[in-house]
């Protein structure tokens, strides 16, 4: 192989590795998973890769056997949006790269395929999330009426969140709008029906917004020793919780509970 071709290959490999890391980071993988996956793929090509991982930027250097740095690049991730199809697809691919000695072209093709994979239809997401919301209500001890209201509230809240995200609002604002919408809808029940205690419905109406992935990833990052990543993810989860609480508060102020 000529030197020129080799250089091209290394550049291509480095760019692809960085792209994989960025996709994983944005899809909700923990830092250790990002590092392991990239290590696995680069080892299959006979290179060593070191990375600096932060919440929104990744720095990646590739070293050859002689210990020379042959590729170095820094890139910013796209906005984070949890997508476990991507995490699972890349994990599966990384093992196939090792076992079946894939070429860079094949990896690129697979990434393009994974990026093009469809999400669940919007209506399915809305309905099942609403079902999850009313399940929460039932688990907390709500009645059938509470569950129906939470179902409606969750559906409207998630719809508003998706629309706000499309309009490119700040992500925390999206959460605030969603929490406000669903608590306003469920709050009307609390306001109109004084006889029964509907506290459970009101409290569980916003639970579909809980930042489960940031908080669990925060903990696993800290356990793995990626303290900075863990603290930042935890802080992100904390701000989301704060936005939810703010939404609840606003509707409590509107209804004067």
């Amino acid at each position, binding site marked *: 192989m000529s030197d020129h071709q080799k250089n091209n290959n290394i550049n291509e490999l480095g760019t692809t590795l960085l792209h994989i890391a960025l996709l994983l980071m944005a899809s909700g993988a923990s830092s250790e998973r990002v590092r392991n996956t990239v290590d696995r793929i680069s080892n299959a090509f006979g290179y060593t890769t070191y990375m600096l991982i932060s919440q929104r930027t990744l720095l990646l250097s590739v070293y050859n056997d002689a210990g020379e740095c042959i590729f170095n690049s820094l890139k910013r991730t796209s906005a984070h949006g949890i997508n476990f199809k991507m995490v699972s697809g890349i994990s599966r691919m990384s093992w196939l790269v090792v076992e079946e000695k894939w070429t860079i072209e094949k990896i690129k093709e697979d990434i393009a395929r994974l990026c093009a994979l469809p999400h669940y239809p919007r209506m399915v997401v809305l309905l099942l999330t609403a*079902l999850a919301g009313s399940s929460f209500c039932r688990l907390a001890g709500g009645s059938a009426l509470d569950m129906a209201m939470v179902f409606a509230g969750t559906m409207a809240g998630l719809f508003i969140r998706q629309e706000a995200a499309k309009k490119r609002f700040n992500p925390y604002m999206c959460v605030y709008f969603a929490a406000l919408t669903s608590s306003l809808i469920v709050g009307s029940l609390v306001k109109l029906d004084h006889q029964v205690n509907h506290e459970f419905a009101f409290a569980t109406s916003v639970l579909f917004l809980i930042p489960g992935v940031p908080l669990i990833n925060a903990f696993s990052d800290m356990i793995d020793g990626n303290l900075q990543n863990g603290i930042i993810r935890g802080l992100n989860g904390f701000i989301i919780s704060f936005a939810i609480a703010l939404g609840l508060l606003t509707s409590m102020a509107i209804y004067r509970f």
Partner: protein
Amino acid sequence: MEWLQLSEKCIWFGCAAVGFAVLFNVPVRTLFPIFIMGALGGLTKVALVHLEVNVIIASLAGSTLIGFLGIPFAHNKHAPPPVFCIPAVIPMVPGIFAYRMMLGLIKIAGDIDKATSVQILSETIHNGLKVMFILMTLAAGVGLPMLITRKDSAKDIRFRKTGKFIDDSME
């Protein structure tokens, strides 16, 4: 009769887990295992709470079960364990405690009545600490299989009939 109610909760835990799974866009082949894991983990938790075990310990037991169930499912369905475990533990998040903590914090921050302030303060701290510890136990339970087997990847963990974890490199 009580146990019937507990098993009804099982279904709701499963439904909540599947709802979050769809929200997180998991592969379709993992939806059913997530339902099972959510339901069994939730059942463990409510059964232990029913037997008057502390809710924190009960959550740890439930999430640990989910963490261990995630390994065979991960092998079987070819997806990493977090894809199964994260949606499955989310129904155990203590929403009501968090809500009460928030109400308490607002009361403390607002105009405070000297007569009830100590009670509100202690209730808020109580609820807040419960929320914090339950969240930590959920995350810890999910991570436990990896910590115990000291592996970087679930691919290296084999669960044998002997009940022991066997290293691939030893075979």
